[in-house]
């Protein structure tokens, strides 16, 4: 449904998007994960037909985003990060207007449908200026759905919402994933973990990792990491564990808690627990701790201090470059 090849966007001298490739299939929810200013918004703007890339090729539903921009725009529902709305209009007027621009038949019915989907039927006649942030987000989403697009591009769809609203929006997006291809961006890890079939980790305009949430964790977890806890005396415990076969290094030891790394593929827990119990310690817990997505993310997107000093630019969001007046 979405196919991107060597896509590059350069603002001045900064590579906002640097030679990225990816694809998304029909019915797939793909998450763009990356810190602010990584190039997520720029990529989404290119795919939505808002701006052309500097080089490379992107197609949506088989249509080129530059050559057949109008065809692409007919097939894409886009919710920009800032959730722009015409605050002087009522919810109905706004959605009907957007529906008409998309040449939707039976606009009035369609407005009712999408309002029902986002659970906002009761506010159909409210002025958008009177709506809360969460409601506006939902109206923005309704706008993206008004023409029943094949592809939904949602830029940070849950930003600025309260926890209850976040759950609501996520449930909604999950449901949409069945029929639409969804590309969403976020910098919240738990969000991609819960929502997405596939994750693209993007940093400084490049895709640094790609995979399902599960296999990303597995792939990057590498060496096994084990945490254990004893109660009572702890003297000599670090030495003891360190001597067990298969244990590579003890990472941390405090108040009876201890974490150690084992060689890849080695199951050292039975050995370690036996050693501890035999030595007379009271073992109360031993478990393996995979590297969390959080840690993977930090590792992948960690700033390389050397590279940073070469680039005097401060890492700004990509939107900064456009407001030049």
């Amino acid at each position: 449904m979405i196919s991107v090849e060597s896509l590059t966007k350069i603002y001045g001298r900064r590579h906002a998007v640097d030679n990225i490739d990816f694809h998304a299939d029909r019915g797939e929810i793909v998450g763009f994960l990356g810190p602010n200013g990584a190039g997520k918004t720029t990529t989404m703007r290119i795919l939505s037909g808002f701006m052309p890339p500097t080089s490379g090729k992107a197609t949506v539903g088989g249509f080129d985003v530059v050559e057949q921009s109008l065809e692409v725009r007919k097939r894409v529902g886009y919710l920009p990060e800032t959730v722009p709305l015409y605050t002087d209009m009522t919810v109905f007027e706004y959605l009907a207007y957007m529906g008409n621009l998309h040449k939707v038949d039976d606009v009035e019915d369609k407005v009712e449908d999408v309002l029902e989907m986002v659970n906002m039927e009761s506010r159909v006649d409210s002025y958008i200026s009177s709506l809360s942030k969460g409601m506006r987000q939902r109206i923005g989403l309704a706008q993206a759905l008004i023409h029943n697009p094949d592809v939904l591009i949602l830029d940070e769809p849950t930003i600025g919402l309260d926890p209850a609203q976040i759950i609501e929006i996520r449930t909604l997006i999950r449901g949409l994933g069945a029929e639409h291809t969804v590309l969403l961006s976020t910098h919240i890890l738990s969000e991609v973990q819960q929502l997405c079939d596939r994750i693209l980790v993007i940093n400084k305009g490049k895709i640094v990792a790609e995979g399902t949430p599960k296999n990303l964790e597995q792939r990057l977890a590498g060496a096994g990491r084990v945490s254990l806890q004893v109660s009572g005396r702890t003297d000599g415990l670090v030495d003891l564990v360190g001597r067990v076969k298969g244990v590579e290094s003890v990472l941390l030891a405090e108040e009876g808690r201890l974490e150690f790394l084992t060689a890849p593929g080695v199951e050292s827990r039975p050995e370690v627990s036996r050693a501890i119990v035999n030595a007379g310690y009271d073992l109360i817990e031993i478990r393996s701790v995979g590297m969390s997505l959080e840690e993977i993310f930090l590792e992948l997107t960690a700033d390389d201090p050397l590279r940073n000093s070469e680039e005097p630019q401060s890492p700004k969001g990509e939107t900064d470059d456009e407001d030049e007046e």
Partner: protein
Amino acid sequence: MRIVWIIAVREYKRYFATPAAYAIALFLLLIVGFLFNASILAALQQSAFGGGGAPGVQVILSPLVFLLLFASPAITMHLLAEEQRMGTIELMLTAPVKDWELVVGKWLGAFLFMVTIVAITLVYPLILNNLVSPGIDQGRLVSGYLGVILFCSTITAIGVAISSFFSNQVAAFFVTLGVLLVLWIISAPSQATGGTPLLTYLDLRSHFYDTFYVGVIDIRDVVYHVSVTALFLFLGSTIVEMRRWS
């Protein structure tokens, strides 16, 4: 064309939802009305002393055109600048709407609003027609109002194009006003030496006052207004497209 009309209707309605538009209309109609009243009184006084002709439609057209020059930047300044500032331009440019359709739709909405205000001023010639005998010159009324409408088309197109360039409405206002005033007086400095053909042609003032105002409908003036409108609408569309690439 359907898209252009949808956008135009939205823009037109928007004027009636904002207090600023009412303020502009009030300002314009109030001053035109006040000056109309003053000229009627002056004419009455003059005729009491047996002098002066009956006032014609000019007593309305003159202040109307001059005030439109100042009111139109206020009417057009937000058209695209506000979309850019609020980010709603992103919605427009990702909807299946061509750049020119957006610009032309915006222009049409603003133009229709201006025409509405101008239409309200028709009440003054109606009053005048009842006051003077044997009535006002109908030819001058028609040519004068046709001229005002074409004039509105031109100045709105200039305003839309300039609004597309800015994301700050105030900047759009002042630049539009500046451009209109320059076009209004552009041939004045060369008048003393007989006039430069190009500057005389560009002169916005002469394309109203020299012909429509005195009851002459000259096709060349129609061409001038239509082509300047088209030029600036093209310019506006180009700017919108260029902003995508920036």
